[in-house]
């Protein structure tokens, strides 16, 4: 399965599904044009509330990750360059700032944090090539 939910996490299950699909697409596990199970199929497959799954699909559609073709089903959408570079940088910057706040309270110093980021980024691209 390209995602699993952790009921112990305080992240809402629909959010876990959204993140799971986004990650699977980013990692190349789910490819453009690939068909996703219907809400009904997925609800039965993973024993999860169908409203939760529908909510996750709606969010993914809103973000342009998936698209629903009426009568045919739900598919992984083609990547669209929707935002300009400046906006993208702004979005990532604000996420990094949240990490900085966490790092402050975890008392991670600048060097450790930078090393960790570098390693994480490198590993990510290495793994993605491997797919």
């Amino acid at each position, binding site marked *: 399965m390209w995602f699993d*939910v952790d*009921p*112990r*996490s*305080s*992240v*809402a*299950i*629909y959010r876990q599904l959204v993140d799971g699909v986004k990650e699977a697409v980013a990692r190349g596990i789910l490819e453009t044009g690939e068909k996703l199970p219907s*809400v*009904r199929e997925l*609800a*039965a*497959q*993973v*024993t*999860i*509330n*169908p*409203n*939760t*799954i529908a909510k996750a699909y709606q969010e993914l559609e809103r973000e342009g990750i998936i698209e629903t073709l009426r009568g045919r089903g739900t598919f992984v959408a083609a990547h669209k360059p929707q935002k300009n570079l400046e906006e993208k940088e702004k979005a990532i910057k604000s996420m990094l700032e949240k990490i900085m706040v966490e790092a402050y*309270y*975890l*008392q991670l110093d600048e060097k450790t944090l930078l090393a960790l980021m570098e390693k994480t980024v490198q590993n990510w691209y290495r793994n993605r090539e491997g797919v």
Partner: protein
Amino acid sequence: MQNWAIEIQNLSKIFGRKKVALDDIDLAVPEGSVFGLMGPNGAGKSTLIKILMGIIFPSSGTAALLGRDISNPSGELRQDIAYVPEVQNFYPSFYVEDILGYCQRVYPNWDKKRCKTLLKAFDLPIEDRVRELSKGMKTRLAHIIALSIRPRLVILDEPGSGLDAVIKQEFMRLYMQEAASGAGIFFSTHNLHELERMADQVAVIMKGKLLFQRSLDEWKANSRKIQAIFPEGLPEEIKDLPGLLRVETQGKVYSIVLGDHFTENLERIKALKPQYMDTLDISLEDLFVYTMKKEGYSHEIALLE
């Protein structure tokens, strides 16, 4: 207008002269919702369900299922409502096929094909008498009937009890499929992992009173455990945080358990300048336990001798 699968207003039940089993319950289950009812033993969950099913009568108040008042004695009221009680009460001398034949006559949307598929999948011996069936087999039979009537509303009292893990999961999957087709599901449970996957809304009752009803996502999003170090001791302000469930102390580390208003509380705690602070996820199980303890239901005992 919002349609309610279940609508309960000012419902009370008093057994005998003064044993209050349910105290002024108001509850509204939206159509198509999977609604989980939580509460400690003896909270009144089964009493509430039995009233909805017309097995016992309320002392006061009203309730409606799919918009039909439960006080209406007509059989049509529950012809598309499935009910699986905690303990099965089929007539012991009936054969399984007789029970199914009876159901077929009573329920207008009875799905013979579906019933046959389910009987086979769950190995039900239809030539046996009910008294020859094990507890688990009786429970399987009740679930098979519930699914075969093509219900618009399913009411389950502790649906997992008496079933092994494999069979239980299969039935729960089938109920999720029913929910995806638009059926409302209302169930009581002590299994919070199960509840967390299946429910979109939850209600907690205790000692016959409704503590709250809310969206599960929203409840979880607003709950967290915050660990903080205050070298000078716990600031007074912490005790006034809205939604505070509990503060635990281990040395100078305080664990602040929040059942509501997480984001707002986080800012408030930051403003108190803790020496160190960390936010931890909290499982629904812990959240339930902390909520119960706050309400005075704890049963904590010191080490046993």
